[in-house]
Structure formats: structure tokens, C-alpha cells
């Protein structure tokens, strides 16, 4: 495997602040687009805004003007239902006009309810059925090693989809083949459609499970930009194993009545009034600062 252009991502407090503000804008746009769409998932996308921001605005080597650039890092999304956060982040990163976000889930839109690579350039995979994306990421990372390609493969996935057997099939394969060019990022938000993961099907001790499977396991606060970037750096510079980052996130992050509430897993804001409440909370950081300031 050739040396990658890996340099630890020096990041200043100012950079972190900038990324946090972008993440907040992304949260606002997620809610706006979901209201227009009239259906879709709120909690997961809000919870993953910081991670997607860090990925697209700092970690990934990519080029929005050349989405099929050979040397790009591959970002798979396995839990396709949180794609609103990816769409919004991609739009702000320059893949397509922000105005197009309002077409989400509409007939003729490139922004399908679940992400489809046949419509939108820049998506590495089509996903929705849980468990498939992480396996595909493993296949792609394997090819990069076969061919000596320097790029890194990331896969964002949910905690609920760890209940899929295929996930562990792929985990075995990645460890066997020491895919050190692969990083899975698990959105550990503890909720799934029917309730809390530990009630539906307990996943803990998750860290130990992946350790036992032969992975390099990192556990972070999924809302701490610096943590996210540092963990990805460590994943890219690990040589002996694939890396999994268990990112603890708050589903519905930033909106008090959505946070940690499984009922917000799969629905959008119901009207402009509810959207207004949510946006006010985001803009004032839950009242910590005055609205409009």
C-alpha cells in the first residue's frame, strides 16, 4: 500500500467554530427541507450534522466539481434514511444548488427519499435496506488495497443496523483482510424506529464486540468537531486493522423536543409553527443567546 498524503489535520479553535456554525446552518436546512417534503426522518440527520460537516468540510479529499474524481475518498452511507443531512451538506459543499434541497422526495427530483446514485452524482452508493452499505464499503476498500490506491473509504452507519447479520459478516472480512484503509462511523444515538436499541435488541458492550472482531475501536462525542477530526485522523493512520468510530450522538440534536425521542426518528416537522420553534432553538442555541443576535 503506497503512502497516503496523510497529514494530521492541524485545526485551530477558529476552524472548529467555523465548522460548528456550518453544522448549525445544515441543521436549519434539514428541517426546512423536511417540512417542504412532508415526510422523512428528522432525528438521525440532526444528530449527524456535526459529523457530516467535519467530513465534507475538513476530512474528506473530494472535489464537488468532479464527483467521480478517481482519487477521492469514498464516503458510503449505509443507513440511507438519514440522507437529508448528506444532501444538505453536499449542497453547502458545492455539489448542487442549495435551492434544489426543496425538491427532496418530490417527483423528478435527484434527491430521492433514500439516496440513489443513479440520480445524484457524488453519492457512492444507493442505500436504504440496512447493512448493505457497510459491506459495499468493505468491498471498495478491498479493491483500493488490491490496486494500491491511496484513498480512504468511510462508511456512515446506524447503531440499529448492527442488528443485521450482514454487518458482522463484513466486519469479519474487513478484519481478516486488515483493511486499514477503511473507517466505519457508527451513529450511536441509541434509538431506532420501534424504540431504544437496548430495549429492541441490546448492542452493548459494543466497544468490546468490535475489539473482539479485531477492529481498532474509537469512541467519541459525535458533536465535538475536534473529536471527530482527531478520530478520523487516527483511523487513517492506523496500520494493522480497520477502524470503527463509535460516535455518541443525540438524535434530534439542537431541538429540545426532538432530542432523544424515538417518535422523531421517522417524521418531519408537522407545520410552519413547529418548524419555527425548532429553528428558534437552533438559532439561539436553546435560548443561550438572544434570537437574532
Amino acid at each position, binding site marked *: 500500500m503506497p503512502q497516503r498524503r496523510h497529514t494530521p489535520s492541524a485545526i485551530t479553535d477558529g476552524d472548529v467554530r467555523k465548522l460548528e456554525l456550518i453544522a448549525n446552518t445544515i441543521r436549519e436546512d434539514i428541517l426546512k427541507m423536511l417540512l417542504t417534503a412532508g415526510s422523512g426522518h428528522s432525528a438521525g440527520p440532526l444528530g449527524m450534522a456535526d459529523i457530516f460537516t467535519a467530513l465534507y468540510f475538513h476530512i474528506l479529499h473530494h472535489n464537488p466539481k468532479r464527483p467521480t474524481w478517481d482519487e477521492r475518498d*469514498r464516503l*458510503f452511507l449505509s443507513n440511507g434514511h438519514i440522507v437529508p443531512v448528506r444532501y444538505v451538506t453536499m449542497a453547502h459543499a458545492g455539489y448542487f444548488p442549495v435551492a434544489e434541497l426543496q425538491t427532496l422526495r418530490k417527483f423528478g427530483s435527484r434527491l430521492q427519499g433514500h439516496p*440513489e*446514485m*443513479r440520480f445524484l452524482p457524488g453519492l*457512492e*452508493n*444507493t*442505500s*436504504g*435496506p440496512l*447493512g*448493505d452499505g457497510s*459491506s*459495499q*464499503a*468493505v*468491498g*471498495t*476498500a*478491498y*479493491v*483500493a488495497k*488490491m*490496486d494500491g490506491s491511496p484513498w480512504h473509504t468511510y462508511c456512515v452507519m446506524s447503531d440499529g443496523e448492527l442488528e443485521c*447479520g*450482514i454487518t458482522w*459478516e*463484513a466486519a*469479519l*472480512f474487513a478484519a481478516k483482510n486488515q483493511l486499514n484503509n477503511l473507517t466505519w462511523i457508527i451513529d450511536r444515538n441509541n434509538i431506532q424506529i420501534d424504540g431504544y436499541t437496548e430495549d429492541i435488541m441490546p448492542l452493548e458492550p459494543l466497544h468490546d464486540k468490535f475489539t473482539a472482531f479485531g477492529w481498532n475501536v474509537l469512541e467519541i462525542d459525535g458533536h465535538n468537531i475536534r473529536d471527530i477530526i482527531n478520530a478520523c485522523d487516527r483511523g487513517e493512520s492506523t496500520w494493522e486493522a480497520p477502524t470503527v468510530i463509535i460516535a455518541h450522538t443525540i438524535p434530534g440534536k439542537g431541538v429540545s423536543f426532538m432530542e432523544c425521542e424515538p417518535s422523531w426518528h421517522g417524521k418531519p416537522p408537522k407545520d410552519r409553527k413547529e418548524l419555527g420553534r425548532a429553528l428558534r432553538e437552533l438559532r439561539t442555541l436553546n435560548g443561550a443567546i438572544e434570537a437574532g443576535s
Partner: protein
Amino acid sequence: MIVSSAKLVKDLFAKTIKTEPTRNGFGRGLVEAGKRNVSVVALCADLSESTRVLDFKHAFPDRYIQIGVSEQSLAAIASGMALAGKIPFIASYAAFSPGRNWEQIRTTGCLQNVNLKIAGAHAGISVGPDGATHQMTEDIALMRVLPNMTVLVPCDAIEAEKATIAAAEIDGPVYVRLGREATPIFTTEKSPFEVGKAQVLSKGNDVAIIACGPQVYEALKAARDLEKSGIETRVINCVSVKPLDTETIIKAAKECGAVVTVEEAQIAGGMGSAVCELLSQECPTPVIRMGMRDEFGQSGKPEELLEHYHLTAPWIVRAAKSVMKRK
């Protein structure tokens, strides 16, 4: 009666006709495909010997990937490799792949429309003693219904080799159905083969027998026996179940007026269904479909099972005579 352009073997009905499983042809075709294109890779789920992937492993050890008994990730990892530019063949028993991993084939193979090539070995009841769990009879239906999928059911080892090489060259997902048992090699290197084409093997306007897989040979034997009763039979090798050769099949229905379809698979959703879907719309014609009739197989010798489930020449003869009465 045999069409000379079909270039079949000379002593077609000799007792000494050579036999070989279609999976052997797949094994050779895979190596050839690997020689022709460095992007071809092979993935196997703990069945490398019996699916005949072993030859590829020896020829190209760096392009052979052992997945273990994990058919779901077999399909999805392969699709991920296809996304990164490879042409992956995945091989297992058809009962497990595409039996167990249909959703992964649907989403990651067909919806993404990538170069996922699926080799389903040990298809049909002629698997024999292993019994119904390992006798895949629903695979044609499962694969045929998927948009973007090509479905090939080669009739002998030579055609299986051609189908495998062709599969590597097709842009998109392909299913190649293979059998376990040694069956007659009755086509030759010179026999025409083309994806999307059915081959007319014998001339006749009294009845058409459309078959796929090793049942094509049974159909030819049936045609020979029907000839003794003065019935001229058009035997069609429907190797390309999807895309279907609509022109050849409609022409046969029009000119013969009665059709028998034969396959070692469920008649529900199988090749015979594809023929009926076409004919009911374009040229309504009496059809008898032969195959598994909403039932599972069981243990037994292959020839016992083929006889029991009416997949041998004498049963095809009876069906042909019966369908002709409905003209």
C-alpha cells in the same frame, strides 16, 4: 430434423455421448474471462471446489477472494468491488446465492446496475441425494423479475463456458444458472451463442418445445421420438431467459400453433412463464409448462427425480401430443 447451423455434435443420441456438469464449463469460462480482462475477480462462499472457482484461484490467486459462509455480504462486498471498477463473479449454490441474498442482489447489484455476476451452482432437482434444501428451483423466477438483470441458463458445459465469458462482457448484473450433475455435451464450440437469442435446434411446424438448461437435450430426444409418430418438432434452446428472444418464440408459436416449455425449475415465474407472458400478449397459443409444479424436491438419484417430476423425454412427448390437441 436437426438444423445444421446449430452445429450440434455428430452422434447426438449415441449412448457414448460425453457428459460433464455445466459448472465445469463455468470454471473454464471464468478462467478465460480472467485472462481476457484483468478486472475480473472471483468471490466464493466456502464452496470453491464444487462451484469450480478453484481453477480461477489457481490461475489468479490475487484476484480470488474467500468470503466464508456469508452469502449476503458475498453479494454486497462484490457490488462494492464493482463500484470500484472490478467485474466480480460470486459463486455459491443457487439455494444460497441468489437464494439467501436476493435483497443485496436487488439493491446493490440491480438498482445500482453494477457488474455483479452471479453463478448459481447446483440448481434444479438433479442435485439429487442432498435433498430439497439444496435443490434450488425458484432462482429463475427470483432473478428474472429484477430490472437490469440478465438471466442465462446454459444447456451444457460448452454453452456454460460461453455464457460465463459473455457475462463478463455484459455491462450490468448477470445470473448464470448451473447444474451439479454430468449432462450430455451436445453443442460444440461452433454452435451459435448470443445473449438475447434463442437457438432453433430442430425444424418442425407441428409443435414447439422451448427448453433451457440440460432439459434441452431431453427436448431433442423427445423430438426424435415424436418424429417416429410423424410429428415434426421445433426444439428451441432458450438459454437467454432474459432478455428473451421474442422474435424466435413468437415465430415458433405462430408456425407451430402449440408450445411445450421445459425447465428444471418452478413453472411459476420460470422460463415457461416468461414464454407465456410474451405469447398471451403477442400471439395467444396453447402452452403446457413442464417443471416443478408448486412443490419441493426430495432426495434420490438425479434420474429418479427427473423421472418422478416428469422432466424426461417420454413425459415431454406426452405433453407435446397433448398440447397439439388444443390447437
